[in-house]
C-alpha cells in the first residue's frame, strides 16, 4: 500500500525583510537583499514556499579584534585594524553579500571611541562598499544609546539593520531606526516568550513588524545549540500557525558563538590529539551554521571565509527542490 505523506498546511508566513536601499529608494546600495517570506518549515518545499535564500553576512569589527585566534585572523591579515579596507576585502575578495559591522571600539573597556568617530566609520564603509550593512553596538547599553542614534543618522536612508534592541533597552534604538528608516534586531535570551515580548514592545512604539529581525541568541555546537534550535523551531511553528508577533526572520550570530568555543580556538600545541586548529574552528562554525539553517535561520552572521563558502554551498544544495 502506498504511503501518503502528511502535508502541513500553514495559515501564515514569515515577514519578508529587505536589507539595504538602492538609488531609486533613496539609498546608495549597489545591491540589496530580501530574506524571509517562508510559508513552510525549513526546506520542506512540498508544504510551502521559501521565496528567499538564507544569506550570510560577514562580520567585521571597527577595531582590531582582541580575541580572534590566528586561524581566524589569518585570512584578514593586514586589514584588521582598518575597517574600511577590511570591508572592501570581504566584498571584493570573499564576495560578501552583506556586512555586519560591530562597533566594538565604542565600548568603554575597548577604547571608548566617540559616537562621532563611530558614525564616521559607518559613513566611510557605506562609501567604500555597495552591499547592505548590519550595524551592531558594543553591547554596553548606556554607550550604545549614545552611539547608535548617531550612526543611524549617518546611515539615514540606507535601510541598514541595527542591533540589538533588548527588553531592557529598546526605546532609544527603536526611535532612531523609526526616524531614519532602518530595520531593527530584537534580541532575547533563548526564550520564546521574551522574544515575543520585545517584538510587542518595539511595535507598541509604532515600529512596523515587517522591519524587525529576531535574534533568538544561539549557542555553538556543544554550548547549548539544541536549546536555541528548539526555541527557534517553536517560534517558527507559532509564526506559521498565525502568531504575527513571532513572524520575523531570524538572524543568528554564528561566528561570534562558534569562535568562542574552546574546541575552536585552542592551539594544536596544547591539544595535539585535537588536530589542526584551522580545520577545527572552521568546522565548528560550519556545523553550528548548518544546524541553524535547519531550524530556520534567515541571516547567518559568520567570520571565516572558508566556512562561509562551505555553508553557501550547503544552502545551494538545500534550496534545490
Amino acid at each position, binding site marked *: 500500500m502506498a504511503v501518503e505523506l502528511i502535508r502541513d498546511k500553514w495559515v501564515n508566513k514569515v515577514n519578508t525583510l529587505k536589507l539595504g536601499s538602492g538609488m531609486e529608494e533613496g539609498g546608495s546600495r549597489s545591491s540589496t537583499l530580501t530574506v524571509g517570506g517562508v510559508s513552510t518549515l525549513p526546506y520542506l518545499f512540498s508544504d510551502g514556499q521559501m521565496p528567499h535564500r538564507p544569506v550570510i553576512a560577514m562580520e567585521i569589527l571597527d577595531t582590531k579584534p582582541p580575541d580572534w585566534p590566528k586561524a581566524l585572523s589569518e585570512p584578514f591579515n593586514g586589514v584588521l585594524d582598518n575597517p574600511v579596507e577590511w570591508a572592501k576585502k570581504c566584498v571584493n575578495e570573499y564576495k560578501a553579500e552583506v556586512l555586519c559591522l560591530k562597533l566594538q571600539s565604542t565600548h568603554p573597556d575597548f577604547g571608548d571611541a566617540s559616537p562621532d568617530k563611530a558614525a564616521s566609520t559607518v559613513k566611510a564603509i557605506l562609501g567604500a562598499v555597495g552591499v547592505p550593512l548590519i550595524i551592531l553596538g558594543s553591547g554596553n547599553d548606556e554607550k550604545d544609546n549614545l552611539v547608535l542614534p548617531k550612526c543611524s543618522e549617518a546611515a539615514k536612508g540606507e535601510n541598514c539593520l541595527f542591533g540589538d534592541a533588548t*527588553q*531592557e533597552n529598546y*526605546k*532609544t534604538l527603536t526611535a532612531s531606526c523609526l526616524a531614519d528608516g532602518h530595520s531593527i534586531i530584537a534580541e532575547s535570551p533563548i*526564550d*520564546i*516568550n*521574551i522574544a*515575543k*515580548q520585545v517584538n*510587542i*514592545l518595539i*511595535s*507598541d*512604539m*509604532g515600529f512596523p513588524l515587517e522591519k524587525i529581525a529576531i535574534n533568538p541568541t544561539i549557542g555553538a555546537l556543544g554550548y547549548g545549540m539544541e536549546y536555541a534550535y528548539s526555541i527557534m523551531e517553536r517560534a517558527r511553528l507559532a509564526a506559521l500557525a498565525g502568531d504575527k*508577533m513571532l513572524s520575523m526572520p531570524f538572524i543568528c550570530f554564528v561566528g561570534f558563538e562558534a569562535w568562542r568555543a574552546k574546541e575552536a580556538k585552542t592551539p594544536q600545541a596544547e591539544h595535539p590529539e585535537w588536530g589542526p586548529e584551522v580545520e577545527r574552528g572552521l568546522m565548528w562554525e560550519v556545523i553550528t551554521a548548518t544546524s541553524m539553517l535547519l531550524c530556520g535561520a534567515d541571516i547567518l552572521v559568520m567570520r571565516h571565509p572558508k566556512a562561509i563558502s562551505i555553508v553557501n554551498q550547503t544552502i545551494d544544495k538545500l534550496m534545490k527542490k
Partner: protein
Amino acid sequence: MDKDSCIVTFLHPNPTTLEVNKGRDLLSVAVEAGVYINSSCGGDGVCGRCKVIVKRGQFKTEPSGRITLDERRKGYVLACQTTVHSDVEVEVPPESGVELDKISDEDAKLLRLKGMYSQAVDLGKAALTVEEGIFKPSPLATKLYLELKPPTLSDTISDLERLYRAIRKNRDIPIMQAGLTNIKRLGRLLRESDWKVTALLGKRNETVEIVSIEPGDTSVRNYGIALDIGTTTVTGQLVDLNTKEILGTKGTYNKQVTFGSDVITRIVYASESEGLEKLHHAVIDNINGIIKELVNDNKINLNDVNAVECAGNTTMIHLLLRVDPKFIRREPYVSTANFVPVIRAAEAGIKINPRGLLACVPGTSTYVGGDITAGVLACGLNRTDKLTLLIDVGTNGEIVLGNKEWMVSCAASAGPAFEGSGVKCGMRAAEGAIQRVAIDKNTYDVEVITIGKAKPKGICGSGYIDCLAELLTSGIIDRNGKFSEKISSPRLRSSGESREFVLVFKKDAAVDFDIVITEEDLDNLKRSKGAIYSASSILLRKMNLEFKDVEQFYIAGGFGTYLDIDKAIAIGLLPDLERERFSFIGNSSLVGSREILLSYQAKDESENIARKMTYIELSVESSYMDEYVSSLFFPHTDLNRFPTVKIKGK
C-alpha cells in the same frame, strides 16, 4: 578551656566571642553568638549570602562558586561551609551583615523589613458572604444557663450527674466529660450559687466537654475569636457566639516576617537554636495583641472569650502550635498534622479564658492548608454545580478549581507584594491605604481614594492593581513594566539607579514622605500577578479545561475592601472574560474560620473539603516555567488572550 573547644571572635559590628566545639560551622556559631549574617538557603551553601573573612586561626572551608577569584584572594569564605579548628577571628563584611552598628539585632531586622511591623488596626468587617447563615448555629463553645433542682432525700444523684441531667434536658448530648478541676469545685459552687449556674460547653472532637461552670447566669457573655494566620498578615475577628454578631476585626503584619518572608525560610529558621520558640512566640504575640485590643475596644472580659478558631497554612499552624515544621521541607514533604484536634488555647499560649478552646481548620496537604479549606467553605465552591475557580491572592497564592463533585488545588508562590509587603510604599488594607487610583492621560495628574477616606499613608493591594492598570493605559509604563522616557512630569523622576512615579506628594499625605511606586515595585507586582495567572492557567490545562469553561471566579484576599475587576484583567491578573463571572470576596479564610467557629456543621463540612481536595504540584509541570515567563508582561505575551484590553504604547 577544653582542648576540643575553641574561641570564635566576630569582629563586626561589635566584637563578640563564643566558646564552641572545634569543627562547628561559622554560620551556626554566629546565630548562637547573636551575630547577624545573611543567609537565605539556611546553610546549604547555595545562596552565597553568608560571606565572611577569617582573619586569624585555623579553619576548613569547602570551595564555592559563589566566591569570586578576587574575593577568594581577600580571604572570603562562606560561613556555612567553613568549620573552625582553632581560636579564630572572623570579620563579617557589610554586605553579609546588617550595617547598623548602633541598633540591636532584633531592631535591625525590623528595619531591614521596613514597614513590616505595625500595630493591629481596624479592618472592614470581612463580612461577605455568598451564602452566609446556611449552617445550623452550634458554636464551638456554648453557654447554657441552668437552674438545677436541689437534691432531696428522694433525689440523691450526685452533683455531677445532676448537672449532666440538667444539660441533657436542654441538649441531646449523650457523652460528656468534665475535668477534675471542675469536679473539685462543683459541690461548693452549686450550693453557693443556689443551684443556679452557667455551664460552658465545648465541642472537643467527638465529645462535649463541660469546660467550666460559673455561678449565676452569664450565658449572654460568650465570645469567640476567628483567626486567619497568613504568612504575611494575621487577622482576627471578635464574634458574639450567641448572636453571631461581628464585634470587630483587626489585622497586623505577621511578626514572623522578621525571621524570613516566606514559609521555607521560616522552616529553616525554626531549626536554628531557639528558632522554633521565636517563631512561635512571634505569632502568639500577634494573636494575643489582636485579642487584647478587640476585647478592650468592646469592653468585655478576656475570660468571656471562650473559643478560638484558626485558619492558616500548614506551616503557620505548626508554628502556632510550636510543632517543628522541618519535615514539611524534606522529601517526601509530609507535615506532622493536617487535622489538629481541639486543644486548650492556653496550651498554645493564647490568652483567653484559661480553659477556653482552640481549634484549627483542617488542611488537605502540606501545601494546601486550612486557610484554603476555609476559603472553599466560605465561597461555597463545594456546594455548587457550577465550575468554580477560587483564587486566593496571598503570599502563597492558593488556587482551587472544582465544584461539588471534585476539587483540585495548587499553590503559586506569588510573594507578598499584593499584601503590601516587599514594595516601597506598600501597606495592608487599613485606614489610609490608597485603594483606588485614577491618572489623567494628558496631564498625568493623580486622584486617589483611600480606605476610610483618610489622608493617604501607603498603597494596599487593590491600590497597586488600580495603579498598574492606570500607568499602563496612560502610557507611563510599557508592557514590560518600565517607565516611559518620553513623558515629562514632575511625578516621574529618577531615584538612585532607578525611577519612580509619585502618587501622592508629601504635603498631601499622612506620612513624612512622597508615596511612590518604583520600577522595582513594578517588577515585584509583575511577578506576583504572573505567578497567579500562570498557576491558574496550568491548573486548568491539567484538567483539560480552559478559562472560558469556568462559570464563576471568586477572588479572595485581604488586599483591599474592593477590587476593580476590569483593572485586574487589564494587568493580566485575571483572565479576560465577562465581568459578571467574577466576584471579589475579601478575606475568605477569615470568613470560613468564623463559620466554623459558629457552627459544628460547618466544621464537619470543612473536614469533608479537606479530605476531598486533590493537590497538584506545579513545580513538576514542565510547562509551568514557560507559562510563567509568558505571564511576565502586561497583560500577557499572548495578547489574543486579552482581546478587550487596549493599551496604547508611548
